[in-house]
């Protein structure tokens, strides 16, 4: 830690944050898509389940982006309202 440059430190912080976000997305996505797609767990993850999970993952990302945009818009509205 002692001879870490400022840039190294900033890179590390950014990487750690990216990691935490990826983990959070991964765990929520898995949870949601498992619930939607695996109704009766069988002997393997069959083709239709895999297709369902893949589609669910894409839609979850879409939903994440819609929510993020809506939230960002609302935040900037609240800011102008308060200032």
């Amino acid at each position: 830690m002692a001879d870490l440059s400022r840039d190294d430190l900033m890179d590390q912080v950014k990487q750690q944050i990216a990691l935490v976000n990826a983990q959070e997305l991964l765990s929520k996505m898995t949870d949601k898509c498992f619930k939607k797609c695996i109704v009766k767990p069988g002997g393997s993850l069959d083709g239709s389940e895999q297709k369902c999970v893949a589609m669910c993952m894409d839609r979850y990302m879409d939903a994440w982006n819609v929510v993020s945009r809506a939230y960002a818009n609302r935040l900037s509205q609240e800011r102008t309202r308060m200032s």
Partner: protein
Amino acid sequence: MSLEDIQKDPHLQNFIEMETQKQRYQHLVHGLTERCWDLCVDKPSQKLDGKQQSCLVNCVQRFIDTTNFVVNRLEKSQGLLTAATSADSEFMAS
């Protein structure tokens, strides 16, 4: 850099503050997505349809409305929150 150097470096302080705020925002988006997904997306299909999209947007808006409402109402009720260190809602603080 030692811990002391870090604490004295305004550029770094500023960077950490910005990153913390961004992270708080992302964390809230994760939470909102999770909540609103359950309410708005019944069966995932080829794309999010218009209905699902507007449901998601409304879900975000109403959740923030609810947060504001709860905070305001608590504030009005004999300053229940004044004892707390900060009356800022999580949403407005970022």
